[in-house]
């Protein structure tokens, strides 16, 4: 057997800063657990089973999220959700859900390695996103807890309004992450915001 298993995030060269600076931050949140869940929302038993595992209800209102302590359930479609959880939940979360949903028409698929999260926060966050996002992200239209799947420039992305700072989590597919990060970096530059310097070679 060879060397210990190293994991690489798609933006591996852009790791999180230790403490977020007051004027905002632009960082990757690597290695979170991403689980795609499909089930019939009319199957209340299945939803209850999921609730027991997650501790939060699945959001049924389009483009909203429900957040627990260490897990967020994100609406993707009328029968589709993304569960975003802490890194170490991988495997176990999908496994627990699969067990809980045995016998139901449902699909639980771990896609953690296939996407990553970019966090953008601070007073200029809306201005930065306006450079690539056509949606109206003003808090009256897009309050904390809202989510939307849309395009950032030419890449698909899932946006989540995390809090009123404002803070956004931007979930992108792995191979599009460098492109989206480059757009955000270029857009954020005039506002004095950028990804932290690379701390991995």
């Amino acid at each position, binding site marked *: 057997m*060879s060397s210990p*298993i190293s994991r690489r995030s798609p933006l591996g060269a852009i790791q999180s800063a230790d403490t977020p600076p007051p004027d905002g931050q632009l960082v990757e949140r690597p290695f979170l657990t991403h689980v*795609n869940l499909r089930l019939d929302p009319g199957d209340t038993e299945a939803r209850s089973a999921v609730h027991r595992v997650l501790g939060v209800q699945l959001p049924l209102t389009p483009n909203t999220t429900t957040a627990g302590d260490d897990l967020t359930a994100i609406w993707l479609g009328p029968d589709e959700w993304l569960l975003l959880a802490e890194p170490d939940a991988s495997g176990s979360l999908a496994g627990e859900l699969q067990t809980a949903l045995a016998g139901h028409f*449902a699909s639980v698929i771990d896609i953690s390695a296939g996407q990553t999260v970019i966090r953008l926060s601070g007073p200029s966050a809306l201005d930065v996103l306006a450079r690539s996002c056509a949606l109206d992200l003003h808090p009256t239209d897009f309050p904390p807890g809202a989510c939307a799947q849309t395009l950032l420039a030419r890449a698909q992305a899932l946006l989540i309004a995390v809090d009123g700072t404002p803070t956004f989590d931007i979930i992108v597919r792995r191979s599009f992450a460098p492109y989206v990060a480059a757009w955000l970096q270029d857009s954020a530059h005039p506002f004095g915001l950028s990804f932290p310097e690379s701390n991995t070679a």
Partner: protein
Amino acid sequence: MSQPFRLDRGGRIDRDTPIQFTFDGRPIDAYRGDTVASALLASGVTLVGRSFKYHRPRGIVSAGAEDPNAFVQLGHGARTLPNRLATVTAATPGLKVRHVNAWPTLEYDVMSAFGLVAPFIPAGFYYKTLMWPRRFWPLYEHFLRHAAGLGHAPDAPDPDRYDHVHAHCDVLVVGAGPAGLAAARAAAHTGARVILVDEQAEPGGSLLASRERVDDLPGPDWADAVTAELTAAPGVTLLPNTTAFGLYESNLVLLAERLLADQPDDAGSESGARVWRVLPKQIVLATGAHERPLLFANNDRPGVMLAGAISTYVHRYAVAPGSRAVLFTNNDAAYRTALDLTDAGVPVAAIADVRTDPDGDLPSEARAQGIPVHPGAVVRHAHGGRRVAAAELCSLDGAPLGAIECDLLGVSGGFAPALHLHAQASGPTEWDPTLAAFAPRPGNGIHPAGAVAGELELAATLRQGTQAGSAAAAAAGRSNGSEPEAPRANDSAQAPIQPYWLPPGNLARAKPQFVDLHEDVTLDDLRLSLREGFESIEHVKRYTTLGMGPDQGKLANPLATGVIAELLGRDPASVGTPRHRPAYSPVSLGAIAGRHIGPLADPVRVTPMQEWHEAAGARFENVGQWRRAWYYPQPGESMHDAVARECLAVRHRVGILDYSTLGKIEITGPDAGEFLDRVYTNAWKRLRPGRCRYGLMLGEDGMIFDDGVTARLDDQRYLMFTSTSNAAPVLAWLEQWLQTEWPDLRVYLTSVSEHWSNIALAGPRSREVLAAAGTDIPLARRAFPFMTFREGHVAGVLARVFRISFSGELSYEINVPADRARHVWEALVDAGRPFGITPYGTETMHVLRAEKGFIIVGQETDGSVTPDDVGLGRLLSRRKDFLGKRSLSRPDTRRLDRKKLIGLLSDDPAQVLPEGGAVVDIPGFERPLPMRGHVTSSYCSPTLGRSIALAMVSGGAGHGERFYVATLDDDRWLPARSCNPVFYDPEGARQHV
């Protein structure tokens, strides 16, 4: 240099901040607050360009975006900008301004000889004369381009950054004149999110040149007060120096904001321009109106200006554009200019008024000031060369009234609403007879207010603006129940205009009378067009070039409508105007491109092994948005050498390929097998868990759409591989059938393409390498046979390993989570070193599969190829229906002469046949030559030591038939013979070992 035409007092210029720029190298003194045009006029520069066709001298006509003449080139080198209007360009220190359309110099222009032969180059001249003989056209074009000289492109890449911003608001107010300011204030009053844009450097519009008072303040002061109020209001964004240049479906509005205003043109500025993409809920259109020019001979002489523009230069810039003026009008507005000039100390020698009894407030006031007014009179001719020297007046019946000396001739033919944005989006317009112009009708979220709505009086404009702002906010769902009181103004009532299109009687024969100054279209040109039958306004435009060019006929088109109507004896409403199209004013290409350039032009997708490939010296090829390792040359190797080495390594030892880009779809649910049965041509329900099968997907037309291997993971789960380029289309296609046609099927589709990286290990030693890398999967041939899959650990990582092959060799495709893929890749490379493992790229992959006769969708197929055509008829199930099945029994898909896949071997084994080359039976050079087909894939096969090719040939071919393939570039015919398309290991023994 002095400013002889600068007034001693007044204006909104900052006299404490003198600045200097250059015009054709000559220093021009100005003040901050000047435009390039106002500074040129202050300095007495009247000649700013030469006309497009005849190179006649031309001067500044207007004070805004409608000017047909004031196009200049700004800056130099990489940052130069052509086609900028001096009238809306702020004068900045050090700015370099050049004329655009004269050669060699503005003063001595050899092309002006065209002016002498003008009668010989009427409209349509180019079409009729220069198209023959055809082969001379490039020569003509070269000469014409030089003669036309519409500015110069930059000579180096643009160093500026261009910004794009998406914006949303409740109410977008276009135009910050009196109507726009009142509307923005009323909308902001409700708490609405408001964006107010104006193309000028400061808000105010016509108020900045007004004599009237608003709410007991001088007009300009009121504009300043409201601007300050709006700047402080939350939710209001004020954008000066910004042109709304396009209005599209869904009321999307594009704005171009100029950011260079305060930058010397050659200092390193952050940005050149910003394009705003605004999606407002409602729009207040307060774009004002353009004053119409009037026809008379030599009406293009420098010094002939719009009357309203003269007032603007006097009030706003403290510039008198002349020293002795004559005015020519058909309405009251010019009288205000006469009073402005008189106040500024410029004598007004005469006012010629088409109307026989001008007796409104303004005419009376002008008479009271002693200005000579000539009722029922017109200007018939302007004297002078590079500047107007005198205006020759006559009565409407042609009786001479003498030539009156002047160096400034102000004209006012009434006002045409600036409805361009509205009309761009096909907004309804109607002929307003009191204006003698087209005006926009409200509706569809657009609220016209002020002059654009035909309202020329200030008090009414302010009322209308206030109402429009309140109504727009309410329609956007914002209302606080109260409308602010409209500002009050003390303007005087205006008497109606009297339309004046064609000069009466013989006056209309005088030459030249320009309808379109920018395009040099004369009254005679319009007559010629109509005489030749081009009567529709769109035909007139194309025949004469009326309204073309960077000014888009802002002044010409409203005039042309009336002139054409009169020439045809028709109602102007039925003549119409040419279609309005974006952009309203020229927008630089850099601004349109924004950030979409260089590395941000399109996503570049890479796999987790990208850095490894780079370190290994790989060359890359683009496959859609993916960047894939193409081949890995070692020092001194050509591409041919590298590919040959990689191919032989796979055939004789072992190779490793990054195939992570394949599409991967998990298909889950009790009906997953039934679903696959419907979308694939072969049968799936009985495939046992742990086994794989090759599938072919057809469109309903029976043509191959995609192919790939699908594995049954467990009872209710399948994993489908799609081709790299079809990953997204296949998922969309499957979802469409599932959601729209078969909602009863209990199946979920989830893309896992990005989660799983795919590493292909291929070659006779691959089993040993996989074992050496460490795996808990039993690898013995019987434990893990061909076309099965196993789950287990590889190099410590949980993996799905598929024994499938695209090379024809013993092969494992190892799927691991992408975040651990680099680890597994390196472990396999390390473990493979003793076996001579060789990384190989897409080129080798293509050669290996071609040696095996495996098709690539999109290379052998092109959307017109059935399974039978490529010899895959065995995959068509007879027992079930599937998408496209019925089409395979249509007469066309059963034709015997359909193109079929064959192998081709060139007679010369060293000759690689050209891909795309035509395949024929008998060579020849007579066109058209009967073509049998085309070469689809062609390579040098290192395994076979010779070239091989696949081709699609009508009717197919047996073994050894003679064909010829055309070279693509040098008209040669290459002899070749047909053969079995499986060139290597036709029994398929090697992949089963």
